[in-house]
């Protein structure tokens, strides 16, 4: 009898890129629902808009690059990029902002570098950086989370704002958008107010919840919970978020201890802005992260350090995108210098001369 031949191993396995991506997407649902509840329909509109753009761009690029559509278009990676970027954008950002950011992420940051698995920088964060640098004003159109003085727009009102730029008659931009808590803290600290003064300020005080920004603490809490679930299931590597959170905690504690009046407290850092989304869903993008055990600790910690630096002394309110891209650049180097000791080898056996060779060339 004649048989087919194949290379070992012969056990079929059922893990797939697709299932990894979709599990991560599913885990983002609770936090996203919280965002919709606090910040309105704009969150959902952004996600849908970004997804449509991302899938269209992905299909276009696959066709241009003569790659098979089916396995790549539905591998979930484009959807994940879209979702992450959409969650990072202001809820009432005009439609073209989302379109430009997403299209740049998929076309330039992902496909021009070789597509899935070959992009050195996190596409969603590249898209974000492009729009925040190009359109700083539009990027401040954040909706305040369900505060007394502010009313959430209805779904149709939201659509009109995003696609037509038409505000409902009764509201002005100031009535429906405001600076984020992180932004406010930064501005007010610049005006020589102390942390406690800001937290008890008649105008801004209501922005702060019990541990983080109002509303934000819920969003972050839910992303933390589902992120932990992904870690336990081994779908994402726990070392990256652990390193990120640890670095942020250490730095914010140190500075808060040094001067609690002018440095924001650690809990506020952790539960404001997109920290948990960044720690568990953005920084853990395996393609652009370090891959070794030690490298992942350092990679996460590096992002944490840069977030703290940019938030505290930088000119942008939240520095997640910049921090992630800076560490993306460092990932290959981290991998190289944190290679694990192979079985039966002593430490420090790895010949580093190849790096040197390349420099000389």
């Amino acid at each position, binding site marked *: 009898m004649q048989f087919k031949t194949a290379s070992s191993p012969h056990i079929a*396995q059922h893990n797939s890129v697709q299932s990894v991506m979709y599990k991560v997407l599913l885990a983002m649902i609770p936090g996203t629902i919280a965002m919709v509840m606090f910040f309105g329909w704009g969150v959902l509109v952004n996600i849908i808009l970004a997804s449509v753009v991302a899938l269209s761009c992905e299909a276009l690029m696959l066709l241009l690059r003569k790659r098979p559509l089916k396995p790549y278009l539905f591998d979930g990676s484009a959807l994940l990029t879209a979702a992450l970027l959409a969650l990072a954008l202001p809820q009432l950002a005009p439609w073209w902002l989302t379109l430009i950011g997403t299209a740049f992420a998929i076309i330039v940051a992902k496909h021009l570098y070789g597509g899935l698995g070959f992009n050195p920088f996190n596409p969603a964060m590249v898209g974000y950086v492009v729009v925040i640098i190009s359109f700083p004003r539009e990027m401040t159109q954040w909706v305040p989370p369900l505060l007394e003085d502010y009313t959430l727009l209805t779904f149709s009102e939201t659509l009109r704002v995003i696609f037509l730029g038409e505000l409902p008659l009764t509201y002005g931009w100031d009535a429906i958008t405001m600076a984020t808590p992180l932004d406010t803290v930064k501005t007010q600290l610049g005006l020589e107010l102390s942390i406690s003064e800001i937290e008890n300020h008649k105008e801004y005080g209501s922005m702060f919840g019990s541990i983080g920004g109002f509303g934000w603490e819920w969003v972050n809490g839910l992303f933390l919970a589902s992120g932990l679930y992904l870690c336990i299931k081994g779908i994402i590597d726990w070392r990256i978020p652990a390193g990120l959170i640890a670095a942020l905690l250490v730095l914010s504690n140190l500075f808060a201890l040094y001067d609690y009046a002018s440095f924001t407290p650690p809990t506020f850092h952790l539960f404001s802005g997109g920290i948990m989304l960044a720690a568990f869903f953005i920084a853990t993008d395996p393609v652009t992260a370090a891959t*070794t055990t030690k490298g992942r600790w350092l990679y996460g910690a590096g992002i944490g350090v840069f977030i703290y630096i940019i938030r505290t002394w930088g000119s942008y309110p939240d520095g997640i995108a910049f921090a992630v891209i800076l560490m993306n650049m460092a990932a290959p180097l981290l*991998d190289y210098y944190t290679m694990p000791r192979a*079985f*039966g080898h002593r430490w420090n056996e790895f010949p580093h001369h190849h790096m040197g060779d390349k420099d000389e060339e």
Partner: protein
Amino acid sequence: MSNSRHLWHFHGGLKLPSNKAISTASPVAKALLPKRLIVPVQQHIGEAGQLQVKVGDSVLKGQVLAQASSYVSAPVHAPSSGKIVEIDELPVPHPSGLKALSVVIETDGEDKWIELTPILHPNTKSPAELRQIIRQAGIVGLGGATFPTAVKVNTGPHAEIDTLIINGAECEPSISCDDMLMRNYARDVISGCELIQYIVSARHCLIAIEDNKPEAIAALQEIINEKALHTIEVITIPTVYPTGGEKQLIKVLTQKEVPSDGFPSDIGVLVQNVGTAVAVHKAICLGEPLISRLVTVTGEGVLQPQNMDVLIGTSMSELIEQSGGYHKDAAKLIMGGPMMGFTLQTDHLPVTKACNCLLVENTAEKTPEAMPCIRCGACATVCPAQLLPQQLYWHASSKNFDLVQDYHLFDCIECGCCNHVCPSQIPLVQYYRFAKTEIWNMERDRIKSDHARIRHDFRQERLDREKKERDEKLRKKKELLAKKKQAEAAAKEKDGAPAEVDPKKAAIEAAMKRVKDKKAALKTEKDDAASPTKKSSDEKNTQE
């Protein structure tokens, strides 16, 4: 059965469904004596043996067919009595469907042994004598490596073996021949352990068995208790693939790591498979060479999975037939286990010493197209060699053979764990095999070109030397000629006439005369006589 010993872990590994129960349900079946036996001359790592028989010879069971040709070599024996009908290059079980020199025996059905010389009291023999018996019995590592056992147990005068590990882990799914061997031949296993322990003078012996084989553990423990052996211990180890890998097993039992460029004996350990232990027992205590082995015939593609006691050289197709035949969907025939075994194109191949399992799988699942690596690192998490498989893949696929070696490609044991967990379904092991082969080829070419370069250098040196010698000769000749001319000139001056016809004679005479003249000149005409000698010495100086 209590297991008080502390065990360690190796990095990574996998929990796999064992699929062993389907082949252990029925007792070990003795395969029918086949009409034809095809015995490949080389069934071991090392040099092929030298044929001792020719077509037409009658052989007895256990008679040597090929003798070991060098130190790292092993003989093969006739598995049954009969007549040699063919000696030719025939297909052997090999991943690439190779042919190799094989002896075909038409069996006579009598199964008549040669005269056996069992050793009743092995401890009266020296380890060297016992090693010789193992060597002549053609025993090779039966765990799959097929390295000649006599070489492995000759650890040399410098390596002191503290721990002998008998590997009964059998970590690959589906395979159960070692399990059945331990259950049914526990006494022989223990006897083999004692013999090897004696040969390598190991302080103690650990028999390592995965905890999914309670019957085997109990059977061995019973014999140990009965014989009151204090230096042999059965150790139950957790079932994790590939804990049966030599280096992994040593780590689990001793915490020690075999150096990457060394051998287990460097850290005082020797590992032997349980099957090898039984073969050693048979060779020494019964005088029987290695002519049969247990083979697991299993998989969903076989109707009656079982373990069989099989003569080396039996056709695989006969074993399948005796195991109920193929399932109608049978599509893939694997020699070895599902993780490290290789597929065969046909079942018309002989069972060899290395063949521990025939695994038949049904309709080969369509493997999905490989996606790009997303660097998730799942492979590194499971790699028992603590490598970075995805970096290896990256550099292997871009043919960067320097970097791939920096990432320790040659520490890869090809266990397939990385392959198994890869979400992108990349056939990683295939890439590593490719890179290894390429590097071996390059190494071979390099050695060849090194040889060529050395040859060229030697030739160049020889040519230079010859040229120098020629020049020297020429120079001397010229010098001589110059001297001769000088002498003739001198003679002309003295005699006023040319010298006689014989130039040799004239030269001698001239030389004699010159000496005379010199002596005379020393006293009277100093300048005249000294000039030729001085000139020649100057010439020499410039040439040097």
